[in-house]
């Protein structure tokens, strides 16, 4: 298992609010030594050219380059775990089919309902559990 100080995560979402929330959850885990952020798929790929990361939290609907396009390229070029964090997954739209075909390591709803902190916390816990299980598998 990688040591904490080596583990890096990249959050890709066009919403600053969502990045803020995800960052807060991931930060609280004390599991990663570095948290990168990108606003869209293009930025994420550029960032990956220069930095090695262990996990990507990827949104689907984004301007410039969406998550589906980004995931295709990420799979071709990089060895990295990807969790799709998207409200689209929940809707059962055509996207979620595509996402499955692209073999993401995990799919999770966006954390929502910040007005009800318990709900936000629950979603946060789901994500934390998912991240931990991904890294436990390789031991």
């Amino acid at each position, binding site marked *: 298992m990688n040591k904490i100080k080596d583990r890096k995560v990249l959050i890709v979402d066009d919403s*600053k*609010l969502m990045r803020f929330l995800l960052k807060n959850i991931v930060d609280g885990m004390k599991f990663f030594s570095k948290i990168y952020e990108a606003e869209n798929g293009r930025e994420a790929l550029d960032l990956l050219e220069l930095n090695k990361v262990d996990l990507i939290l990827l949104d689907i*609907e984004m*301007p410039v380059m969406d998550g589906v396009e980004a995931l295709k390229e990420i799979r071709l070029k990089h060895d990295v775990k990807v969790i799709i964090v998207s*409200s689209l997954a929940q809707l059962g739209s055509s996207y979620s089919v595509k996402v499955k075909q692209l073999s993401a390591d995990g799919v999770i709803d*966006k954390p*929502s309902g910040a*007005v*009800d902190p318990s709900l936000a916390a629950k979603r946060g816990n789901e994500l934390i559990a998912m991240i931990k299980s991904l890294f436990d598998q390789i031991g």
Partner: protein
Amino acid sequence: MERDFLNEIWLQFETEAMEHCTSSEDLLLDTNLNANEGTKIDSLFRAFHSLKGLFGTVGLSQTLELTHLIEDVIDKIRSREMLLNNQIRGVLLKCIDVLKNVISLSSQERKEIVDENLDAAKQLIVSIETTEFQVDINSKNIEQKEFNNQISVSDKSDRFATVDLESIDFLFNKAGLVSSQVNVLKNMAKLSLENAQSIENVEKLIDILQTEVTTLNQAVTDLRLVSVNSLIRRLKRDVFETATSLNKNIEFSVSGDNERADRTIINVLSSALMHLLRNSVDHGIEKNEERGQKGNGKIDLDFSKEKDGLLITVSDDGKGLDRKKIEEKLRQIELLSDDDIKKLSDLQVYDFIFQPGFSTKSDVSETSGRGVGLDVVKKNISSLGGSINVVSDAGIGTKFFLRIPNIVSTEDCLVLSDLKTIYAFPTRSIQWIRTVAQVDFQKHSTIRSIVHEKNIIPVHNASDLFGNLAENIDDLEEKIILINMNEKAFALSYKGKLSYSEHVFDEPDPLVSKLPFVSGTTVDQDRNIIFRANLEKLFEINERAA
């Protein structure tokens, strides 16, 4: 900690959601937006999709439903199942108003705040897809009632100004420099009591300080400058709504909107331009059927920099002003004789449209007949020290030119600060200030008065006119101030502190406009309100007595 976290969430939410609202508003107001422009429709779709995500994130579930419905409509437009016409645009714009309102209220309360407008908006959106839509939209009264309490978000945001960081840093540094030099000056002043030589140094430092303060003033003036761009969205919206209500197809374009003007000017310009544009939509551009081959009406708004101000041009490609109709009106109100009218050039005739109560349209339309005429526009523009004129060509169109000075000039004032409220007199109106001993009062007179240019002028007590003096000023000598302007004079007796300073005055606030001697208000750096004395009203006192 938890509190800060929630604060941050709601702040981020409000900023981000508002951005998506305004960007979709901009897209909808873009006259080139249609289903053929795939990328723009995509952006519109994505904006509403993001809004939906944001509402979900903070738990605004009822509002989320509305964005979900809107998303469906835009998806249909994207796939060309539906045509984006002006009616749909109108509905979507109204929905954005409702969303903005929900966003700002909910962010304040940190929970979902909705009113009946949200349901009304949902019904409107649903009705788009049914035949009821035509009926709903046409019965304008219902629609208006449903949206009657639109809270104007833009009004609220007037309290905030966006300032670039560079300006703030500059001001910060300058202010720091000035205060450190003031400290040096204080120390020097102490020393100079013992050492005469250092007086020279003090004077040098005062010079330096003076320069710094001048730079500071310029920088602060610059901060008051706002991009005219801040007006554009509202104006576009207004043109769109006016055109839709009059059933006219109009393309409205704006250029040069990165020019800047003083905040006060922008506020006045906002209503002036709104009226001018409404006027162009209503009277300038012909009805669709009259235009025929000419196609869509075109209205252009252009801002450009002139030597010491801003030139704004509002042009339309309508039928032009009708000289005959204006002449008719002139005869009707018997302002001029027939012969005189014939002697006038076209431009001179056109200029009459800026006269009060001058409307060539016999039926006052709902649109431009909202109690504001071109005469009010002219008055507003003049109050800024600007001018307005019009040129027109039959069949080609009409152009209005507005010339506005870029900076409201500051006024050098004599400030009477020991009154209950502070009053300022323009320095250029002050003839002299003397102690009682230096004044030759008129002898054998029942009221204290002086002779000025062979006129006997009574001396009025400042505290009688402007309210009581502050307490504990017994040690200050009484002074007589002679105010003299446009060959009218007024003498004032005042016992208290006097100083000179520069100010930029705003129109008097409605709350104080009832005070008899106030012609403007401003606030000094200590947040004291300063009234600009209304000299005309003061002169009237003497005239009435005479």
